[in-house]
């Protein structure tokens, strides 16, 4: 492989590594959001509609 080819290969490799790191970070954050959502869901009082919870009681149908 010529010098430029090797250099480009390194750059592409580094870019891919960086992309993988970002994807991993995004997946980690998503898990945190998921866990918080689950925690809130399992400890909420069941039977309340979103209208009641948002304080928008009107006659509209969901």
């Amino acid at each position: 492989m010529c010098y430029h080819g090797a250099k480009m290969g390194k750059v592409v490799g580094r870019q891919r590594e960086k992309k993988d790191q970002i994807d991993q970070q995004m997946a980690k954050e998503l898990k945190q959001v998921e866990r918080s959502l689950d925690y809130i869901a399992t400890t909420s009082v069941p039977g309340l509609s979103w209208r009641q919870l948002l304080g928008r009681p009107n006659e509209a149908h969901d």
Partner: protein
Amino acid sequence: MKLTIDSNVFVEAFVKGSPNTELCRDFLLKAISNYKSVALFEPALLAFEVCTAVSRATSPQAKPDEKRGRIEKAKNIFEILEKKRPNWQTISVDLPLWHAWKDNIDGKILVNKTQDEIFLFVAQQNGATFVTLDKEIKPNCSAGTVKISYPYEILKELSPEL
């Protein structure tokens, strides 16, 4: 794809046993995870509305610490979304623009609640589709004002979670 998600979608996602809990949870996680193809534009009002709803959804028997903990969890979700997700944008309403918009939509968008108007405003200003569970909004918005969809419609277009 550009979206503005109504607070009722978040609220429905966290009350277990509600008719749309699974749908909304699935939709939200997919929209958030698709950070390369979905851009989210949300009014600053959203976090406040959702945290208030979490507070209301807490059992009256819950200890103050438990209630605070639940609200902290909700705040935590928005902190992650606002600070760390590249596809999330929190929009503060610009008042002069808001007034001009209100004059312009007079008679074209007939919703009763200011909260609804703020979400529609943010969606329209950013060219986003407004995703809501409220079936009353769509018939009250004239064609060509704001594109309105329901979570199950958008869910079909989203790729699986990362």
